[in-house]
């Protein structure tokens, strides 16, 4: 990956937040956030709660005890 997109992605891969990436790269915060958002839409980045969105606890008794599940 190249350019500002690649630079932000490299920072995210290191475990930095979009805010930290923006500060390190000297770019506006909303630009780093836009990169993170688009990368997520492309399937390159996971949102913090993405894995938990796979179940809806009220729909299945098996999910009842899960404190991490979506809603």
């Amino acid at each position: 990956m190249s350019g500002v997109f690649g630079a932000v992605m490299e920072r995210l891969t290191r475990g930095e937040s979009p805010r930290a990436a923006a500060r390190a790269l000297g770019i506006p915060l909303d630009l780093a956030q836009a990169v993170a958002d688009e990368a997520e839409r492309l399937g390159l980045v996971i949102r913090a709660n993405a894995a938990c969105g796979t179940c809806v606890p009220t729909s299945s008794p098996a999910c009842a005890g899960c404190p991490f599940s979506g809603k």
Partner: protein
Amino acid sequence: MTSPARTASVLLVGNPNVGKSTAFNYLTRARQRVVNAPGTTVELAEGSWRVGDADVTLVDLPGTYSLIARSPDEQVAADAVADPSHDLAVVVLDATALSRGLYLLGQVATAGRPVVAAVTMADLAATRGLRPDIGGLADALGVPVVEINGRTGLGAEALADAVRAALETPAHVTGIDPHSHTDSLHDNLACAQHLFDWVERVADAAVPATPPRRTLTDRLDAVLLRPWLGIPAFLAVVWAVFQLTTVVATPLMDGAAWLVSGPLASAVSSVLDVARAPAWLTSLAVDGLLSGVGTVLSFLPLMAIMFAAVSVLEGSGYLARVAVVADRAMRALGLDGRAMLPLIVGFGCNVPALSATAVLPHARQRLLTGLLVPLTTCTARLAVYLLLAHTFFPGQAGTVVFLMYVASIALVIGWGLIARRTVLRDVVAGPLVVALPDYQLPHPRALALGVWTRVWSFARKAGSVIVIAVVILWVAQAIPARGGYTPTEVPVGDSIYGVVSESVSPALAPMGLDDWRISASLISGIAAKEVVIGALAQAYALEGADDATLGDQLRATVDETSGGHAGAAALALMIFTLSYVPCFATLAEQRRLYGWKWTAGAAGAQLVGAYLMAVAVFQVGRLLL
């Protein structure tokens, strides 16, 4: 200009909350209607807008950050932009977040739509030193740019003029080559990289780059995202949560248990006596259902406190940091970092965690993670730990429960390493990329709602799965296997349930747990781990020994079976409960995902491993405790 017979169609496009709808209302006033987007239930506002001497149809599209949609509303926006029957797009840009809007504008231009840009919130941007240079922005974009304010009407006429001119002479954005959208990741990635470079150039021309200031989030992350500080900090946080949970929950649990076994049991017995119910029905209701389900439900206060604590950690953004730190640690061990999120879900419930392995890109990674998920200790097992910890380690219950979670993590890592070096050598480790949110205070109302939803769901599960299991157990306990008793009057030890459990219990002797009630509860726990405590409570209640609590009776039993080393035996029981065969729901989901061979093999390995560990814990522990 379009033909006189046709009204030009103009799309109003923008990120969410940029003042797009406010501008729409100002421009169209009362001449609006709501329509469904073609083929969908998504509602769109359309209005008639006077532009020069003609009316145009203005369509207020749902707000979106990108034309790669992830919701039906966003798909409507993307489809409308791709539809060549629309003549022009007015892209609304928030001056305080210009880059995000410019990226969307670039995508609209890529779709081939002529564009006019409308800049909102310039006054707010000015207070932050971010007021864009409208002329510089227009030069960089090569299309008309107008500053507007939908509340005051500022720029409305200028925008109408710009739109009229653009309809006559369509204006296309400089530096972007229109092309059709594809579903290819490679193409979309290349397009995104090109567009973001273009956005950076345009934004630089319009407004000076102002990187964000260092915030509390940055200062906390500087500490908490370091592996050698972050992991101990996480363990300290989890330990504090368990301490808080056990200290606060103990009196509430005692109160709930007293309520169920005292007044509630008496009331139900009295009602059944008055109704002249047969003895077997009273036995089923009081000693079976009420005893089993009631004991589990007495854990609801604890679950509520636990869920609240975890929700605070999750809502604050801390759990996402834990995933990042743990990802680094796991990759250092050669395990796939992206497996962290499903494994964290597993600490809530193993079944959704298996579904969550879908985030992993390769089948072998999903298989490895899915086989490790049952080793993450779910909340159902937490109830068992709490009973045992309170009973056998009353002064250190929180610490003991915390250590069970540490043991669970150690088991995941240990089994993972074994699998990577034996049956799953071909799994390739990859990075976990998480877009970390800023730290924030969880919203109290959302927190309360989340806790209520989860506690209620847990209670409903206790009211369905556990009731069925307890009834089945009661039936097995009512059928005699020896001694010539009549059904329902047989002592539990002589029932089918007691005899089968008794035949298994000698195998538990090396763990110091040679008792049929304990072996019975563990067998029952294969159905659902929540049933373990219910089965224990039911077995003791049916024996009708005395008025002692479940904990007291269990303590007396284990004291006897362990030869006076009850603490060591209790630890062995906890370790065995942590890692023996998964519940039916988990096994069924594993079989669906990976087939019988892997499911049976993993369950067998877990059972043998759990047995050996529990025996080792007791044999070593009895020398120390």
